[in-house]
């Protein structure tokens, strides 16, 4: 496996970069959580972030839409600067709140705990962003929302409140809610970790469909099999730094970094048996 291949984004996908992070640093008090992360995601690319618990995956994802404000670094989404601050603390371009809200709505986020609005039905949850933030006419937003919920396999449940839905259904509503803002990139923070095992599959299936439709995605997950299946690139975070990255066949099957080796160890063992099969599959995908 050559290293040049491992570092280049998959060539057949679009070349426009949708998301660019430059030297993102984040501290909570004295605790350094991110130590200069560079990450560029091109249109249609699916990036999976892996790493041990506490390595900064959630923090990084929350920096992308400024739910966490980085200490320094810069964030560009769809060619618009969302954040820029030099390491010396000087704020190169202060960006007004209104602009921040507008640019951040080009990202859609799906949370581990779903975070649906409990006082609204599934349909109202999905319509909220377009109607309140984008000021779309209600009827138009309703049609779009119904389509999205249908796509998520929830046509039967549009009038239900979150508490009447299973975890898997709630998470799919949450995906539809984020998609309703027509984001350029979707961010997923361990979207299946809070689910009962039998519900994990339906959410993964919905995400695979999204990926197939060409959506740009950044996904934090511990499901390495799923990562292998869906990722164009796997990024391994360690102590707030990108320690290794590349195509799944490289990072998950032939890891180099010692901590990545032990991290994927168990997957690796079972993958050893499957390797011929997995590699054939990867080759198929590349054609």
């Amino acid at each position: 496996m050559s290293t040049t291949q491992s570092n280049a984004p998959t060539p057949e996908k679009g070349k426009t970069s949708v998301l660019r992070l430059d030297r993102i640093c984040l501290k909570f008090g004295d605790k350094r959580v991110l130590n200069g992360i560079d990450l560029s995601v091109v249109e249609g690319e699916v990036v999976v972030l892996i790493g041990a618990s506490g390595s900064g995956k959630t923090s990084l994802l929350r920096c992308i839409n400024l739910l966490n404000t980085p200490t320094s670094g810069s964030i560009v989404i769809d060619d618009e600067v969302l954040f820029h601050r030099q390491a010396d603390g000087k704020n190169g371009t202060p960006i007004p709140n209104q602009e921040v809200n507008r640019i951040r709505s080009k990202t859609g986020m799906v949370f581990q705990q779903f975070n649906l609005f409990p006082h609204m039905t599934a349909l109202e949850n999905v319509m909220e962003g377009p109607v309140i933030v984008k000021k779309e006419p209600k009827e138009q937003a309703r049609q779009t929302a119904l389509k999205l919920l249908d796509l998520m396999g929830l046509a039967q449940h549009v009038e239900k409140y979150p508490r009447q839905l299973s975890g898997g259904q709630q998470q799919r509503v949450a995906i539809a809610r984020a998609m309703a803002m027509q984001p350029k990139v979707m961010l997923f923070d361990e979207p299946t970790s809070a689910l009962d095992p039998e519900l994990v599959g339906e959410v993964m299936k919905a995400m695979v469909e999204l990926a197939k439709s060409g959506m740009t995605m950044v996904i934090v997950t511990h499901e390495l099999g799923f990562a292998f299946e869906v990722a164009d690139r796997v990024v391994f975070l360690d102590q707030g730094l990108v320690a290794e990255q590349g195509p799944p066949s490289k990072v998950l099957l032939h890891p180099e970094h010692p901590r990545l080796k032990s991290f994927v160890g168990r997957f690796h063992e079972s993958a050893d048996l499957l390797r011929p099969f997995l590699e054939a599959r990867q080759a198929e995908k590349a054609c």
Partner: protein
Amino acid sequence: MFDYTVITNNIGLLWQGLLMTLYFTVITIGAGLVLGLFVGLIQLSTFRPLVLLGQAYVEFFRNIPLLVTLLWVYYAFPIFAGINVTKFWAGFIGLSCYVASFYAEILRAGVQSVDPGQTDAATAIGMSYGQRMRRIILPQAFRKMIPPLAGQSIIQMKNTTLLSMITVPDLLYQASYISSFTYRPMEVYTAVGVIFLIILIPLTLLSRKLEKSGASAK
């Protein structure tokens, strides 16, 4: 022994007193809600001086006995400020400021009890601070706030009896006036107690019911 005629003969005075009590209950709860909402939101802002100002307000009015506040506004404040304050205004200001401090705390606690994930989700779809508050946070917080708001408002009605100390002719003031010339305090004060029970017991039951329905809505 128990002479009902004392009450029936003076029913007009008691009625006037009751109206005064209800009037002050309603207007001070109204003003208190507006002021309390304001102070509560100030405490929830991210601007430190405002937060401290809100906290100072709450601690000030919560920790001074209401009777002292009323007497101070009526007797001391006019001397400080060099203006004339009628007993009605003194009663209105004292009671409103007092209850506002409790309402503000209820609001703050209610908003802070909403899962921070709700703010994250609302922010992530691009909502501004105002949109988040109005559409997502306050509707959820208000649901939890209804029982304590109802409780505090019931206490407020009882607290209006302190108005008699600054000679506002509320129910209790009329009662002491009636007993001063009939010499029948037993009948008169019993009647006052019964009137409060008749009004407040249904309200208490209602707030219990709201509490239950609020709990099941969660």
